[in-house]
């Protein structure tokens, strides 16, 4: 099983969610994060003082999925999150050694 972590533009998050739904992904954890990469932050001025705001708002989506579905998940995210502008974000994949559904105690792929 894999944990797919996608950092995307906040305004694309809904799109990604829908795309994942379509390919049968039924669970998702989301959080507000900030980041920078090629796309840098900006400077704000308050009464002449500069404040560098280095980080831009991004949305982090975490999806635990079976290795089998991984490819479909990655493709769905890429398609749905892409605007073609810098700052579109990244996808990171790590291996999961275990997944447990708390309510039932189910483990592994059944728990997804």
């Amino acid at each position, binding site marked *: 099983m894999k944990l797919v972590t996608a950092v995307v533009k906040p305004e694309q998050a809904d799109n990604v969610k829908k795309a994942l739904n379509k390919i049968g992904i039924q669970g998702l954890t989301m959080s507000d994060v900030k980041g920078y990469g090629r796309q840098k932050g900006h*400077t*704000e*001025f*308050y*009464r*002449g*003082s500069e*404040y560098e*705001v280095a980080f831009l708002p991004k949305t982090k989506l975490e999806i635990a999925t079976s290795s089998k579905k991984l490819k479909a998940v990655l493709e769905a995210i890429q398609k749905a999150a892409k605007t073609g502008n810098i700052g579109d974000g990244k996808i990171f994949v790590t291996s999961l050694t275990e997944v447990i559904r708390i309510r039932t105690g189910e483990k592994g792929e059944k728990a997804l």
Partner: protein
Amino acid sequence: MKIFNRLLILAVVLFQTTTVFAADAPKPVLNPGDTAWMLTSTALVLLMTIPGLALFYGGLVGKKNLVSTLSQSFMITAVVTITWYVCGYSLAFMDGAKGGFIGSTSRVLLKGIGIGDLNTTIPETVFFCYQLTFAIITVALICGSIVERISFKALFFFITIWSIVVYAPVAHMVWGNGYLNTLGVLDYAGGTVVHINSGIAALVLCLVLGKRKAKVKPHNVGYTMIGASLLWVGWFGFNAGSAVAANGNAGMAMLVTQLATAVAAATWMIIEWLTGENKPSLVGMCSGAVAGLVAITPASGFVGPSGAFFIGLAAGIVCYLTSAKLKNAIGYDDALDVFGVHCCGGILGAILTGVFAVKAIGGTAGALEGNVAQIKLQLIGVVLTLVYSGVMTYVVIKVVGLFTSIRATDAEEREGLDLAHHGETIA
């Protein structure tokens, strides 16, 4: 019949003049209309400090110092009420030696005050409360330069003393029968007493305290806008209330206040728009409005609409420069620009009062009407206040520093004063 009516109009006017100034005039009589407006003005000026100024300042600090900043204004409201009751009011407004420096102790602890006592046409109790709200906001304004690092304990002792040994004498000299008043210095609603006074104190304090470890951007521009709005609205009580009557003077004071404020806000906005980041910021508009309010304060009972227009324009430009440029050029850490906006704006207003004063409005002509000497008088008021308040502020904070540390520790500053000094956090 018409003639009789007209004579009566004349009589009314005469009467209103005679009672106040005539030597053998009878005790003035209570006017419910004036009293209504002064009760209201008192509420409006209190609203300026809590929650107005508290929010204006609170929005501009970092999130971990919001509770601390709000607490300062709230604590000051409570404590200055007590010092004003104990002796501040008496020292400021009871007659002392004519042309002197301090009032008498005849109303210490408000002894002898009754429901029948009047000040001009309103109850003395109302006058006490109204003037109290000025003392409160003057002290609260100071905090803007020292937020995010002052020790709450030191502040508590500092303001207790300052409200007595600095505010009361300055108020007496300008508004009581003290030196500057006798001299003929004009300060309708507190350009010197409130703004120069607090502004110079703020500068001294921030120099004594030193800079903050880190500057963070305003954490809640929304609060700042609410605060600026309440200051604007409440300032009607501040300036139009300074007529101590619901009459044509109050009306004109309201008008010039509104106009100068609007012009200064627009000016600051446009300067930002055409320079720097090319963006008109909300903090900029709010700062401009406050600058306009400050600058028109001493002038509000003396100038007409065109004077107000120019005062607003000048305030927008000058306070922008002192806050956004001068401070960064020199490098003192007047966190929320109390010196840049209140002291500089107050000085500007005091001087321009001497320029734009209209005899038909406030009884005194300004330079434009030929009375150039008024500018000199105004400068005397400015300098005396700067020197007295500046020096005394330094003395008071140094004395307080003998007994308690005046600055938060580095750890407290890093942690935020909310948790360190108040044990509370905003989630």
